[in-house]
């Protein structure tokens, strides 16, 4: 990838597919992906940011940052930064195995926003 502008990113990666009828768009989907990935990465003190809608910047707590093109690379570079593997088969294994309380929404940003709004209402 071009390290100067990052514009030759992973736009063609399969994870960028936008399911028809969901009302999503490229930018919105990207932000949701980044938010969800950060839920995984936060416990490892890593952070992912969108970069120009084409690439990502993966940063560690020690100041290391790297431009990555798609999610296949995000996890690989994250493992390199951590010096250990990120195994989805064991990740969150300590969680209580209960299904989510509500079925998945096709509109995650709204769901997250709604929840925050509800929290503010309840505390006020």
């Amino acid at each position, binding site marked *: 990838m071009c390290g100067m502008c990052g514009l030759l990113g992973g736009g063609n990666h399969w994870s960028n597919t936008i399911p028809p009828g969901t009302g999503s768009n490229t930018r919105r989907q990207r932000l949701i992906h980044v938010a969800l990935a950060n839920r995984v990465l936060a416990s490892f003190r890593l952070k992912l940011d969108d970069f120009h809608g084409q690439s990502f910047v993966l940063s560690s707590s020690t100041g290391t940052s790297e431009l990555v093109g798609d999610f296949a690379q995000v996890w690989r570079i994250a493992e390199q930064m951590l010096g250990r593997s990120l195994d989805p*088969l064991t990740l969150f294994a300590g969680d209580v195995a209960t299904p989510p309380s509500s079925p998945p929404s096709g509109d995650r940003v709204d769901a997250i926003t709604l929840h925050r709004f509800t929290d503010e209402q309840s505390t006020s």
Partner: protein
Amino acid sequence: MSPSYDVLPVTLVTGFLGSGKSTLLADVLHGDAAKDTAILINEFGEVGLDHLLVGEVDARTVLLDNGCVCCSIRGELKEALATLFSQRARGDLPPFSRVILETTGLATPAPIVATLLADPVIRSHYALNATVTVVDALNAAQQRARHPEWLAQVSAADRLLISKSDLVDPTDIAALTRTLAALNPAAEVVVRASAADKVDMLFAPASSTDMMRRLGSGQRALGRGAAFPGFDSAASTDRATESNGAGDEGWYRDWSGDPASLAHRRAMPSLAVPDRPAPQDIVSFCMQIDEPIDWHVFTIWFTMLLNRHGDKILRVKGLLSIAGCAQPAVLHAVQHLVHPVLHLDAWPDAQRRSRLVFITEGLARESVEASYARFRQRLEEPDH
């Protein structure tokens, strides 16, 4: 539109050494069947022979120089494909509309798929149509036990053609058919095919037709006795059957049963070779998800899974029911590589739930399903 902008379908024909790939092509590609078709042949060894066997299409044949199409030389494949397209665009070659890529018998399909999917130039001009694997009925047991390439070729197949079936006892053919269906439940297994069926095997798109048939209800009644003559009743319990070219369109496994019954193990005593240690178990299973999936959560989970375990995941293929999307999505992965996700116009049956067939080596179904359930639980809960 200018031919420079066309995206040409590529059919990958693979199979172990001597399985009959070139014979298949030589049988099929005559007259109209060869029309508009360019063929790339990858040979192993200093002197290529296969291009001589398909001499009738020699004018459109590009012989890759040497060795196996693998990671180290896939640049040659890229170059050959790019050259082929350039010649077509310039008018040096007739404007063919499809490509067949015959690999050497020692090639594993994944790097070839990678070349088609990952290279920015190639993926703009070519799209993988289907992978057809020819299986030598006479030597399948030995090849499976001794050569990991055999398993990679079978796992990657959309269609499996058993060759040399006339040289093998029908009961052994039935056992081999069951083995192949267990190893790769997503693939169509054909024992003997007419010329017309072979043409369909090579050129019919894999994702939009075969997928719907095999992952659909599978309720079609088949004329089992007529389709599989000479086999005993135990053998005929298999869904794979003989292609007789008499109107049957394809054969598939019935996925409508309990998912637990869909798990298969590779241990097939009749094909075991005792003088070799058994390789790690190959497991195929169908992961079913009843509720529509959250696309974002799924992609996070699946990219992580392929990153860490892609070398153990020989194949994933299936339909996804995505929340908010009425159309089913086709997911198709070979090891670390995922094909572009396609959306079908409609569901093939009333079962509007996600069904993914996994073929894995040393990766248990329970751990994969539990992992996805945990990701759902963690990532689908509201943000705090």
